[in-house]
């Protein structure tokens, strides 16, 4: 049985194991979303109401799904003597597929609700762009950009979840504790370095000054892309998401290569 075939078999297994959870989640999410939309419509007098979509819920869902399903799917794959490499490729394809499907459903449900309630579809992308760059960027928002944005963001959430799961999987008890504390530690560290009383003293060091310079200029660079170039903000976000996802996947591969079967 050749490699590609095995990849598809694992993919089939993954999607099968996700489908019931996804169905239940989507059922609830759509129901709540529609309920809110319809309730809003009955309360609103002006025609200015908008309804939202389930993007945030999707992001949280896929993040948690990838984390929660890893052990079971990994074990199942390994018990059938499939290599970790194949599992890795199949998981990527499965995540991409799920991201796309969720994004599509998000968009589709939104459009249906618009039809049913007459309210405008106020996607989160709208809200971000408007708050950052003002109203004139709305022309760039269409079905395709929303779809691309959703898919890439979901993909990022999923790969981040996978990376976190891999870190825990490979870590021993002590490392796991450190891992659990690390976000807080990191945040505190960054706060101290950048904003606190330590800053004046650190500014004596060239390395520190260089790091701050690069950091600030990076954001300036992003800002200029936003407003000065032809590449639209949306696409920048999408490309950055994909880059981040790919680097997550790279790290996942390094971690899964020698993962023991437990």
């Amino acid at each position, binding site marked *: *049985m*050749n*490699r590609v075939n*095995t990849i598809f*078999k694992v993919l*089939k*297994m993954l999607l099968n194991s996700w489908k019931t959870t996804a169905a239940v989640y989507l059922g609830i999410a759509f129901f709540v979303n529609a309920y809110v939309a319809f309730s809003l419509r009955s309360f609103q007098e002006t025609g200015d109401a908008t309804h939202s979509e389930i993007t945030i819920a999707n992001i949280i869902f896929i993040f948690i799904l990838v984390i929660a399903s890893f052990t*079971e799917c990994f*074990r*199942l794959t*390994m*018990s*059938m*003597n*499939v*290599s*970790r*490499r*194949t599992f890795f490729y199949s998981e990527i394809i499965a995540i991409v597929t799920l991201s796309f499907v969720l994004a599509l459903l998000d968009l589709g449900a939104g459009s249906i609700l618009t039809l049913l309630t007459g309210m405008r579809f106020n996607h989160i992308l709208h809200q971000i762009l408007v708050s950052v760059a003002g109203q004139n960027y709305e022309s760039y928002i269409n079905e395709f950009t929303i779809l691309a944005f959703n898919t890439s963001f979901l993909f990022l959430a999923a790969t981040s979840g996978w990376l976190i799961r891999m870190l825990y999987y490979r870590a021993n008890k002590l490392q796991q504790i450190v891992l659990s504390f690390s976000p807080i530690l990191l945040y505190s560290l960054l706060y101290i370095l950048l904003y606190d009383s330590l800053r004046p003293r650190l500014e004596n060091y060239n390395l520190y000054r260089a790091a701050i310079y690069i950091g600030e200029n990076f954001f300036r660079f992003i800002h200029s892309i936003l407003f000065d170039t032809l590449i639209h903000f949306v696409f920048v976000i999408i490309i950055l998401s994909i880059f981040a996802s790919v680097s997550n996947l790279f790290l996942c591969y390094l971690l899964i*290569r*020698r993962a*023991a*079967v437990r």
Partner: protein
Amino acid sequence: MNLIELNNISKYFGKTKAIDRVNLTLAPSKIYGLLGRNGAGKTTLLNIITNRIYPDQGIVKIEGKNVVLNDQILRNVFYMTEKNLFHEGYSLKELLYLCKDFYPSADLSYAHTLAAKFRLNLKQKIGGLSMGYLSIFKAIMALCSNAPILILDEPVSGLDANHRELLYKEILEIYAAKAQTIIISTHLIEEIAALLEEVIIIDHGKLLLQESSEMLLQKAWIVTGEISKVRSFAKSMRVLNAKTLGQREEVLLFGLISQKDLIAGKNSGLDFAMASLQKLFIGLTENTEVNHE
């Protein structure tokens, strides 16, 4: 061509050396018994062979190719683990379909036949099985998979005597039909002795011996008689253990005894009997070996 090769495999768990420079070559189409005490390293070795864990030193090759992350090779191996890796919610039928997915040459009708023989209801969920039936199901999956290499880790764990006999016969049936390479790791040495073509003994992570079971059994002697006569007879051989009762001594000897020596020994009043594989195994792994001064 040699099917399975282990070249200088070592594995540490922390500071403990779980596998110590094991070199093994397994020819195809034989039934091997992998024997060892609890904690000797049998499961670790099998895990290394199937790339479930990585060795710290050495390479495992199957058909000349390194097994690490090698799907092409790993697809030819079905590994029945002691631990259950399947989530409890899966039904047995689902798992059999899964097996067929990944081992296309699997014979599911044979699986159903076996399930009937063992009185196993395939509609159950795997989480609801008793320990014995869990083993039975895993064994059924292994046997119906038709993979060229079968690795069974404690296949009769928890099985009652009747089921054990039945499983041994089924293993022989599939072996007679398909001539697969089968590696069985077990504690029930006596029961499996007659099934094995070759015996591999692991002790404290080291390879103690690898030999045909027939040859091995020809070297396992229990010699009884008057102490001095026994001792002089056993002078040139390995004495694995010795029991003294009054003026008589019974020793477990490991080695070949020529016809000539045998007749001479009998004539001098010694009694000879062949030791069972289990007795030999215990003698080899017990540290009761007597050193001749």
